[in-house]
């Protein structure tokens, strides 16, 4: 899985107290992610692969990349399912 993903522009978001909060205006929902989820969201820039993201977060959170890569991929799948992100 070397795909790259980008945040969809139509969702306004900001970091609030360590969480990322975004507005899904079509669904009428306020969505907020955990601290790690928020970091994944911020780094979904259409350039980094999930493996690179896991490596980056591994360094930030002092955890082995291969241990968190599975979680990153699962989180990205959820975001994709909800169409919050798109493949580049």
């Amino acid at each position, binding site marked *: 899985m070397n795909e790259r993903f980008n945040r969809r522009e*139509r969702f*306004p*978001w*900001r970091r*609030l*107290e360590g*969480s990322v*909060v975004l*507005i899904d*205006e*079509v*669904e*009428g929902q*306020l969505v*907020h992610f955990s601290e790690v989820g928020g970091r994944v969201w911020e780094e979904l820039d259409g350039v980094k692969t999930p493996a690179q993201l896991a490596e980056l977060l591994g360094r930030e959170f002092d955890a082995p990349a291969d241990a968190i890569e599975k979680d990153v991929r699962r989180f990205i799948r959820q975001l994709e*399912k*909800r*169409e919050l992100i798109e493949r580049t």
Partner: protein
Amino acid sequence: MNPTRTVSLMEDHDGALRTWQAAGIKNRILLHFDAHLDFAPILPSARALLEEPTLEAAVRRAGESPLWDRTGKTSGERAHLGNYIHEAIRAGVVREFVWVYPDGTEPRRQEAAAARLLAGLNFGVPFRAIPLSRLSEIAPREPVLLDVDADFFAIRDLDSEHYPLHDPGVSGCWVSPQELVDRLRAAGIAFDLATISYSVEEGYTPLTLKFLGDELAARLAGALAAERERLYELLRAAPALDALEDALTRWRAPALLFSAALHLAKAGLFDRAKALYEEAVARDPSYRTRYNHPGQALRERGRFAEAEPHFALMRRLDPEHPHYRLAELEDLLRAGEPARALALGTAIFAGGAREPELLLALAECRLELREPDAARTWLAFCRPEALPPHLLARYWALKAKTADSPDEALEAYHHVLRLSVRAPRAHLALARIYLRKRNFFKARRHAWKALKFWGAR
């Protein structure tokens, strides 16, 4: 005359808010003379949740309202003539709000009708609603913001079958601008800024009474010249044709010319009627508004049968009026005759009309005729950012139906959802698209919403 008074005239009543804001006005008592409250809610902006200082505050605020604006526009950008007072209060322009409504033909019924309009509203500032006859009950200790809609003179009963429009069967005003000024004086009410709207454009004030706005402005600003006084007196008396024709030998005021033209047209004297109508329009082009008869507003409220005689009369007076012909086009579309509608629309377009309603109707004709490519061409002429809100949803629905790809259709339907509180058809279409895309999560969600909103219709 108080030299510090300013009187500002405008067509749409939300111009009052712009006037107050341009003058930097804050924290004032608003005295609003209107047949309408102009306090429709402005939904809180979903994006504003992101401005909350903490996550807890954002989540709490999200739970405060079941409905959120999804257009991404600020409340100021969403202020219009039906809700600008809501925004004036939110923006701190108004700290106290008094709605003065017309004295109905039956006071108790009028009071009950006003109470129904006010039920459940929370103004967030001290508020009172009183009929004009009780104006002396309020005694503001400071100059107020005086805000008058000319439809106050034209619309009397708040529970009339025609409300919120005027009764097309009544041609005069129930109270005159002079009486209003006298009552203000008797109640000891002072003002430093008056805003007056004509409100012809949405069909509230009949064009034949538009002059009442001018008359009130002149009276509030100071004394009227004797000549003007006589002209307004004549116009207010809703004179018969011979009196109008006699007056036309002295004055060529658009209001006189237009009223005489209507009288002549109703009497079947179309040649003379047309000449006077054309002169009125030449002197004041606003007299060719699509709302120069009650038919347009009645159509917009779905009262097609009542509207038709008004249109029939005006079509004979101004056969090339693009909006009268556009109404005919929409009738053909509704009657399931897209080919005839297309022929008429093409002729209107060839005549130089470029109204967005026309372009959308032409796109719809092509779509009905199963020519999506041609429909897309018409839509390409429309700039969505320049379309008024009531046309925007129609534009995006047509965009979705003529989309080249599922993704394009998805994007367009998402615009429809942002503009509509309930849009079961859009949800159903989205469910179908997501099903084809094998996104069962989204397909299920939209199918459920389609069912839910269909049930609520």
